[in-house]
């Protein structure tokens, strides 16, 4: 009797249309965000080696978007990537924590017995 009393046409309409609209609205947001990400993405200009070869001797064009890395920095990045992709990085503790580190008192970090205070006395 309860099942018959309900307006099942309307109930199904609310269910299907409601869930469908949630999906449509959030999918619409995905496209907006993708477009947004495309517009806002950081632009790193990678120079084509052939073009570089052609322009040898010509004055280098300085742009705010170009990135210059030193040899050391490049080596460090390459090493990090190598360790990461080959899974040979140190095993992490795998614990995410927000515990504060307790700083215990030590005469070495004391403000009372600092050099400045001794000087004033």
């Amino acid at each position: 009797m309860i099942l018959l009393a309900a307006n099942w046409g309307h109930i199904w309409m609310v269910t299907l249309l409601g869930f469908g609209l949630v999906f449509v609205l959030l999918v619409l947001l995905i496209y907006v965000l993708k477009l947004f990400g495309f517009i806002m993405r950081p632009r790193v200009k990678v120079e084509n080696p052939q073009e570089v070869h052609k322009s040898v001797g010509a004055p280098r064009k300085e742009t705010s978007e170009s990135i210059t890395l030193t040899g050391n920095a490049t080596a460090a990045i390459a090493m990090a990537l190598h360790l990461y992709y080959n899974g040979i990085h140190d095993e992490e503790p795998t614990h995410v924590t927000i515990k504060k580190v307790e700083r215990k008192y030590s005469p070495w970090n004391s403000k009372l017995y600092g050099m400045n205070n001794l000087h004033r006395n």
Partner: protein
Amino acid sequence: MKQLKYILLSLTLVLSMAVIAQEQPVAENAAVDELIAEEGQPNEAGLEEIGAIAENELAESSAEESVWTEVVDFFKTMGFVRVFDGKSDSGDWRQLVMLLISFFLLYLAIKKQYEPLLLLPIAFGMLLTNLPGAGMFHSELWSAFLDPESPAYHSYGAIMKEGGLLDVLYIGVKAGVYPCLIFIGVGAMTDFGPLIANPKSLVLGAAAQIGIFLTFLCANALGFTEAQAGAIGIIGGADGPTSIFLTSRLAPELLGPIAIAAYSYMALVPVIQPPIMRALTTKEERAIKMKQLRSVGKTEKIIFPIMVATIVALILPDAAPLIGCLMLGNLMKECGVVDRLSKTAQNELMNIVVIFLGLSVGATATGASFLNWQTIMILVMGIVAFACGSAGGVLLAKLMNVFSKEKINPLIGSAGVSAVPMAARVSQQVGQEENPSNFLLMHAMGPNVAGVIGSAVAAGLLLTFLG
């Protein structure tokens, strides 16, 4: 043992006073009766003498009686007496049961730390409202508030005039103010970066809302009205403020059970979700490592809340209060020029509103409105809604893996039910059980915050269709 003796003694005293208070003592003029018995029926002089004696006796006894009456009246005002006097309007056994339930919820909040920030005020609100005779919350005033034929129909003035403390606080729930204020705080504490970096998360957030609509169907089949079914279904969104907002509009009579179900199940996310996640995924799927998310710039984070609030509010105006407040809080956090406002929204405002909201929602859980079959059905359907939502997210993530080149760990799908950040933490924990070097937390935060937007949108849709 000694303490037990004192407790038993005091209980006996109180119960005996309660019994005495119920049996009205009849004052008898014993002295006059004695005189008549000794000297037989009086003549005129005797009558005068008796009259004088009687007056003296009456004066003395009325003094004694007035003290006695005061004591009895005082005992009649006690909650213990009201519970046992058999009058349902002042108090009954259901209130005692509700007091026991409130003690249990307080235990869960304090000892087990299940969502203590909200469960504790809710439980204490329940305690206060079920104290017989305290008069802190009057459900009959709110019934009159909703009755079109009553002179107090939609009259907040009548509530302010005749209501107790909790009635006044409840106005904020009724007007839908507290959930929106809480959403400002939630927005100010939320980082939408993982969602902006991986917009696909929004689909998982949408899929997890299936629990809302399936439960809506079930509730209708069980005989609830459509509006009540919509309010019950929203429990599947796993979002307390959204549940309260929608229920206060669609089915205010169910606010107590729905709020308690929503917050209890949110606290039980680490218990409910892992078995579902394990049942629906293989070991290999659980061990999938996801590509690191791109970094998100400050400008993107500032434009995101403005853009989402505008788009959602233009498409679905009924969702504007929740989404608007959520995005306002987030904008205050991300823009970096109103740090004081952002900190206030995250701390003081949020905390104050949580106290008011918890107390007033707990106050609606009176014995008469809570102890019935409806509440049990709501609690059962709430868990079904939660389970369906979690399963929906996981299954859609598996489906996405079929069509997508970049594999997604299906465990992050279950975080699509809001419950920020508990659901994301559960994804991280279950993922690490298979692969300890797998960090899913930030990936799961995307669907998690998408779930907040999704449940607010679903609430707006239900309000549009059923409100």
